[in-house]
Every structure is written in structure tokens, then in C-alpha cells.
């Protein structure tokens, strides 16, 4: 490796050496309790695919350059400097982690491997081995933010088409303004994704509840964060924040997407508006009677997969369950569930990569869980989870149907 590159990587290490990182570098005792908690390690038992194995690669670098004992006695703590070999190990470590933070819940010291892998991904961006798909998507998202005015016209045109679908579903007289955009002082700004389902279904629910809402021009997902580039990640998140502030909305509601919710809810610090997930909003409507859902309309066995970023990392456990228990007559819980639920294996941007074989293998604990429940319909509230569950379904030949929560809600909406 060239000296200038090492210098650049070292400066990234330094800039990311924040308070939690200081704890995590010194605290891990390599007790190995996290081995059993990682779906990737469960699927492929290899050191680099375990939480401690992953973190250890990064920890070696930190010890070498930023800790006293590591600088004085590198042998003692197994510290290692930057080299192509270490960067390859780091690549394997970072890009097998979905950031589900199941290991953090089970770690006696609460070490956040997901956050550490964020730093690893940042190093890989500088080293030039970050997955090019994600870098490309992040660049496109940044470009979209810079020149949104050029794209507004075309986007509004297709949204007009979607309004007709909403009109049909709700038997309304006119499709006008069923999906409002750029509406000032709205109570809710909804942030969707690129796919039509992520806009139509919530639009049906918002209109059924007669909400004063508006649709964002941007997509909730943050490819900058997935790729590991904090600058781009921040820019992409700021697009939404700026739009919400400009429109003076009270609440920003995130699409069924784990990352989108986590970034705005937990990682952007204090914001001048409330951040909720669409799941919470549906629950609110259901409780207050703004929308009516058919009781026990689905008779097939249904189970719910907690998206890690909504459940464990966002605290949304009860809402989706209460919604489903209302619609479904045979609701089944997975074991383990809630904060101990297994990650499906599609998070952290892994779902966008060309690694289906890896994801089928590491989805094994999830598959076992689903099979055990005997459920015919698996519901989840995250785009990544749903597409990964589809991969698991076809990979293992499961006889299940995977559905979005908004989808099953819309199907059973009493209009």
C-alpha cells in the first residue's frame, strides 16, 4: 500500500474515533458470546462472519494506531497496521454484517458491532473496494438531491397515474389531489421509495383516514449510509430534512424501510419534527377509529418478522402485532422473537448486492424460524426484509407468501 493512502486511512480512523468507539476498543474481552447470535455465522461458521471476528479486524487497526498498549506492545494485543490483506479481511467482515445489532443485545457490554462496521465501510470507501452498486446508487441519490427541480415534472406525472389507483380502491369521485405534493403546513410528510407499492398503499391508508398529508420527492432509503460514506449519507438524509423543514410539516413518516427509519429516527440527532414509521401511524388510525380494518378477515396462519431496525433498534414491537392480531384470526409468533428475533440477512445494503447464494445460506436461521411457526403468510414492514424473505422463500422452496404490512392492511381495509 502507498504511504499517502495509509495516511488517508489513518485520518479516517482518527476522525471516527468517537466516544462509543473508545469504549468498544477497550471493552471487548473476546468472550465469544456473540458467536451464537449472528445469523451470518450461523449460516457460514467462519471467523470473519462472526461479530467478534468482524470487530477484531477493525480493533487491530485502532490498537496499532490509536492505543498506547497497541503502539508499545503490538504483539501483546495483536495490533496490525494497514495492508492489503487487512483491507481484504475488513471487506469480508463489513460486507457480511447487516447491522441488525442482535449481537449488541446479547453482548454483556453492549458493544455495537454494526456501528464499528460502519467505520470499516468508511475505510473501504477510501481504499476503493466499496461495492460499486451501492456507491453508484449513492451518487445517483446525491445527484437527485442536487438537481431535484429537473425531475419534479416527470415524477409528478407518474404520481398522477397512481392517484387513479387510489381513487378506484376507495371509490372516490375524483382522483384529484389524492397524493398531494409540496403541500405547506401538512401534518404528515410521507417519505416513500421508488416502487409504486411503497406509495399507493400508504396513500390509500392516508386518504381513508382523511389525513392532511403530503408526499416527499425523495426516497427514504439512504445508499450513502449503506455504502459507508458518511458525507453522502448525510447529504442524502438532509434532502428529506430540508424538504420537511421547508414545508413546515409536523411529522415525517417513513416508508416500510428499516434503514430509512433508523437514520432519521436515531442517527440524525435532534430534528424539528417528529419521526415515525408508517406502522405506528396505521396503529394510531386503527386505535382512534380513523380507519376500520376487517376483523379476523385472514384465516390462514400469519407470522410477523420484526425488521431489526424497527424492532430492536426502534422500539416498535407492539404496533404491528396489534394490527395483525386484529386482521388475522391465526396469528403465530416466531421463537425467538422481538429483540431476539433473527435478522433475515438482507439488511445493511447486502440486499442490493450480487450475493444471493451468501444470503440464502445466512438466511438459514430465519428459514428455520418461519418453518417452525407453520405460517402460510409472513408479514414484515421493511422493503429489504420482504425482498430477502422472497430470496429465502425461493432459495429453500418454502410454501409461504411474503407481504408488506401496508399491503395486508390495504387488502383488509373496510371502506
Amino acid at each position: 500500500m502507498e504511504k499517502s493512502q495509509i495516511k488517508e486511512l489513518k485520518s479516517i480512523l482518527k476522525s471516527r474515533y468517537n466516544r462509543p468507539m473508545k469504549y468498544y476498543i477497550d471493552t471487548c474481552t473476546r468472550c465469544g458470546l456473540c458467536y451464537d447470535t449472528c445469523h451470518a455465522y450461523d449460516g457460514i461458521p467462519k471467523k470473519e462472519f462472526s461479530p467478534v471476528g468482524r470487530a477484531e479486524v477493525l480493533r487491530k487497526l485502532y490498537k496499532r494506531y490509536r492505543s498506547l498498549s497497541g503502539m508499545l506492545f503490538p504483539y501483546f494485543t495483536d495490533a496490525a497496521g494497514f495492508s492489503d490483506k487487512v483491507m481484504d479481511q475488513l471487506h469480508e467482515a463489513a460486507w457480511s454484517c447487516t447491522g441488525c445489532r442482535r449481537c449488541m443485545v446479547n453482548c454483556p457490554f453492549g458493544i455495537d458491532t454494526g456501528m464499528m462496521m460502519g467505520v470499516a465501510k468508511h475505510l473501504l470507501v477510501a481504499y476503493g473496494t466499496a461495492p460499486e452498486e451501492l456507491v453508484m446508487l449513492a451518487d445517483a441519490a446525491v445527484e437527485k438531491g442536487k438537481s431535484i427541480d429537473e425531475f419534479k415534472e416527470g415524477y409528478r406525472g407518474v404520481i398522477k397515474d397512481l392517484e387513479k389507483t387510489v381513487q378506484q380502491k376507495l371509490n372516490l369521485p375524483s382522483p384529484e389531489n389524492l397524493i398531494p405534493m409540496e403541500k405547506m403546513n401538512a401534518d404528515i410528510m410521507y417519505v416513500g421509495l421508488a416502487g409504486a407499492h411503497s406509495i399507493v398503499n400508504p396513500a390509500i391508508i392516508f386518504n381513508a383516514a382523511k389525513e392532511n398529508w403530503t408526499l416527499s420527492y425523495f426516497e427514504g432509503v439512504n445508499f450513502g449510509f449503506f455504502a459507508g460514506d458518511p458525507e453522502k449519507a448525510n447529504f442524502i438524509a438532509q434532502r428529506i430534512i430540508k424538504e420537511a423543514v421547508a414545508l413546515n410539516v409536523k411529522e415525517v413518516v417513513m416508508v416500510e424501510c428499516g434503514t430509512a427509519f433508523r437514520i432519521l429516527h436515531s442517527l440524525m440527532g435532534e430534528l424539528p419534527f417528529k419521526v415515525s414509521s408508517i406502522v405506528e401511524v396505521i396503529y394510531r388510525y386503527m386505535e382512534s377509529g380513523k380507519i376500520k380494518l376487517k376483523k379476523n378477515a385472514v384465516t390462514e396462519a400469519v407470522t410477523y418478522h420484526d425488521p431489526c431496525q424497527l424492532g430492536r433498534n426502534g422500539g416498535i414491537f407492539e404496533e404491528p402485532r396489534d394490527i395483525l392480531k386484529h386482521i388475522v384470526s391465526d396469528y403465530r409468533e416466531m421463537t425467538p422473537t422481538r429483540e431476539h428475533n433473527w435478522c433475515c440477512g438482507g439488511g445493511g445494503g447486502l440486499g442490493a448486492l450480487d450475493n444471493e447464494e451468501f444470503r440464502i445460506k445466512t438466511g438459514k436461521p430465519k428459514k428455520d424460524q418461519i418453518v417452525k411457526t407453520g405460517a402460510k403468510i409472513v408479514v414484515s414492514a421493511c422493503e429489504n426484509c420482504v425482498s430477502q424473505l422472497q430470496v429465502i422463500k425461493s432459495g429453500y422452496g418454502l410454501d409461504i407468501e411474503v407481504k408488506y404490512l401496508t399491503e395486508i392492511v390495504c387488502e383488509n381495509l373496510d371502506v
Partner: protein
Amino acid sequence: MWDKIFHYVLIHMVYLAFAVFFGGILFKLIIVLFSKKFKGSLATYPRKLPRPIGIAAEALIAMVLLVLGHLELIKEFKFIQIIKHDVFLGAGFVGITFMICTLYFLFRRFKSPWREISVPEDFLLLILLFLTTVIGSHLHIGERYEMAQFGLNAELYREYFGSLVAFKPVIPEGISLSPHYVLVALHIFLANLVLMMLPFSKMMHMVFAFLSLNLKRK
């Protein structure tokens, strides 16, 4: 010559060890205090217990017992004697349990998958802790069961330790003239090493565990 070395180990090095121990922890905490905070939240859910209780419930409190046990070396504390017992607590089982634990942790590291993640530090620290406990345990059990007129009672340790705390260090003749003096010196020497290494090794988890667990609940 050995007398001089033992004297140094039992007095000067103890002060040095405690200075490094407290100074090191303080140094680490100051570094943490001046470090950049994480902008967002690293919380996990659900939070069943309020923050301080949750942290205490999760953090290991075994070390508290160890500290309590050693407090009695300085003098008789009424609050510890709420449950009547002979000094030391646990009739020698604390040391034996600790030895079994360190051995378990050590042997576990020879086996996959722990073998792959172990670094020299892990082995060395466990060996160090094991040796310290073996000798400490030996001193204690030897006295308690009066093996071969062992003759090193808790009173002597109290005199020695109490003098250190009062900054008027003396080594009682009962210790310095005992045939087991070398063992006492070795135990103190190893304990000093442990203390000095603690702030700069992974043993720092004793302190940081509380802080990193706090992040999980913030």
C-alpha cells in the same frame, strides 16, 4: 538482597501500582470525556428497566465481592459483618471458584471457535490472574486450616495493609520472618502487575462496561 527486593515489592511497588491503576483509569476517563460524542442514539429496545438499575443489573457485580473481601484486610468493617463470618469471606471458596473460572476461560481459548479470536493478551492476562489467585488462595487456605503451623493470620495482613493505607508502611515481622514470605511477596507482586495493567488492557471493561451499557439505553 531478596529482603530489599521484597521490601520494594511490598511497599514501593504497591504504591506505584495503585498510582498507575487510579491514574490510568482517570487518564482513560479524561480521554473519553474530551472525545467526540456520537451524534445519534445507539439505543436498543425494549427498555424494561430504568437506566441506572438496568445498567447495574447487566453489569457484572462479581468484582464488588472481591473488593469487599479485600476491604476486610484493612480493618474490621461493621457493615460487612452484617452477615457473621470469619475473615475472609467464603472459607476459601472464593479463590477456588475464581481459579476454576480463570482456568475455564483459559482452556476454552485453546478450542475453536475461541482459539481463532484469541490474542496473546487474552492468555497472558488469564495466566496472570490464575497465578495471583493460586498463591493468594494458598496463603488463605494454609492459614485457615492451620496446615503445618502456617502462622500467617489475618491480623498480620491487616497490620501491613492498614499501615499502607495510613501511609506509614511497615512489614510486620510475622510476615517478613515467616518462611512463606516469598509467597506473600509473589502474590503482592502479581497483584501489582494486574493493577498496573488493568487500565491499559481489555480488563478496562470493568470500568467501561458501565459506560458502554449506558449508551445502549440512552
